[in-house]
Every structure is written in structure tokens, then in C-alpha cells.
């Protein structure tokens, strides 16, 4: 699974993207955030306030309950501040 990070999520994780093999019990976006947060200090920091991080599956906004099966890329980022 390709994971992409933007803005301060990217800075905290320390990389813009990575490929990770996910354990089979990671089914939803919420599961993925919980699993990532357990992978080390930098991830714990990035996801310390889980609701402050938004997610997208294949470039479409996704809620915490969305199933990640079938997605090619999952992105995590702060609330948007464009415009």
C-alpha cells in the first residue's frame, strides 16, 4: 500500500511517501491510523491528535470508517488551508 503525507503530517513522519505492507487486521482508515501511530515516535507524533488528520483514498476524501481494501494510495494531511 502506498502512503502519502502532506504538510505537517509529512514533516512529522519525516518522509513524503512510503510503501508499507499492512497487517490483515487493518481494514479501515481508522485502523490504519491506529496501526501507524504504533510504529514509532515520528508516527505517534504525526497522529497524536487523530481527529486533526484527514485522509484520502485514491485522491478522494475518506472518513475513519472507510475500507482501504482496493485503494492504491492512502494520503494523510492536515485540514486544508488553500483558497
Amino acid at each position: 500500500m502506498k502512503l502519502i503525507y502532506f504538510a505537517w503530517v509529512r514533516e512529522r513522519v519525516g518522509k513524503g511517501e512510503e510503501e508499507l505492507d499492512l497487517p490483515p487486521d487493518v481494514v479501515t482508515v481508522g485502523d490504519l491510523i491506529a496501526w501507524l501511530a504504533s510504529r514509532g515516535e515520528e508516527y505517534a507524533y504525526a497522529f497524536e491528535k487523530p481527529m486533526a488528520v484527514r485522509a484520502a483514498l485514491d485522491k478522494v476524501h475518506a472518513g475513519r470508517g472507510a475500507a482501504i481494501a482496493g485503494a492504491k494510495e492512502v494520503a494523510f494531511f492536515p485540514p486544508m488551508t488553500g483558497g
Partner: protein
Amino acid sequence: MATVRVQREDFDAGAEAAALARGRADVGAVVSFVGFCRDDGGRLAALELEHYPGMAEAEMARAAAEAEARWPLLGVTAIHRFGRIAPGEQIVLVAVASAHRGEAFAAAEMLMDFLKTRAPFWKRALMRDGTVGGWVEAREADDASAARWSAADR
């Protein structure tokens, strides 16, 4: 029908708006919005705009499609820049053409609300004193503004 662009370069807002009405006589109203980089009382050197390539364009196109489904629009153009943008420079354009002014105003405002809250762009402040300011925080007012357009309000 909508034109959506995400680009590093500046744009000609007047030409983009004028193009929506050129050569046709069914357009009665063109509303355009241009968002500029402010200098934050002189402290800001520039904004650095990061975006999610592909998704930024897709979200802008989805917002335009929602506006077109909601009002009888005759043209929509949305342009958003990324990269380093200095105070006084243009950041974003939304222009909407329609027969009557009410829907052009409403659609332009909805597009800006959606762009602010849904399009994957993030601003970081670069300060005049050489420090990197923080990432600009999302404003609750923008979420409230976007919520005005939810289905329940129709």
C-alpha cells in the same frame, strides 16, 4: 464544461473572466473572485503553498460539478496556484457565468467555500525575519461557511 487548473504561474484574472462571456449572448452575469496573499501587517515574506497533485484538480472539478448541478451555470473557471507566493500576488481565481446574477454570486461563493475546505492545499508562512512561520491553521469559520451549502439547506 468547467475549466480547472492548478499551476505555479500567475494568471490573468480579467482575461479568464472575460473568456466566459466572449462570443455568446446568453450570459447575463459573470462573477469572479480573486484571492490574494496578504502581508500580515508587514511580517510575512511569502506563503509557500503545498498541494496534492491530482487530488487538487479532482476536488476543484468535483466542486465545479456540484455547482453546475445546483444552478443553471453557463461557465465555470477555477485556478489555484501552488509554490511560493509573495504578498500582493494572486493565489486563486473562481469565475462563474450565468444568465442571472443570483446564481453566479451563489455559485462563486460556494466554490470558494468548497475550495477552502476540500481542495488539498496547505499554506505555510515564511516570515520577513527569516523564520519559517507555522502552517496556516484551518479556520472554523471556513467550515461553517462551507456547511451552508449542505443538502439540508437546499
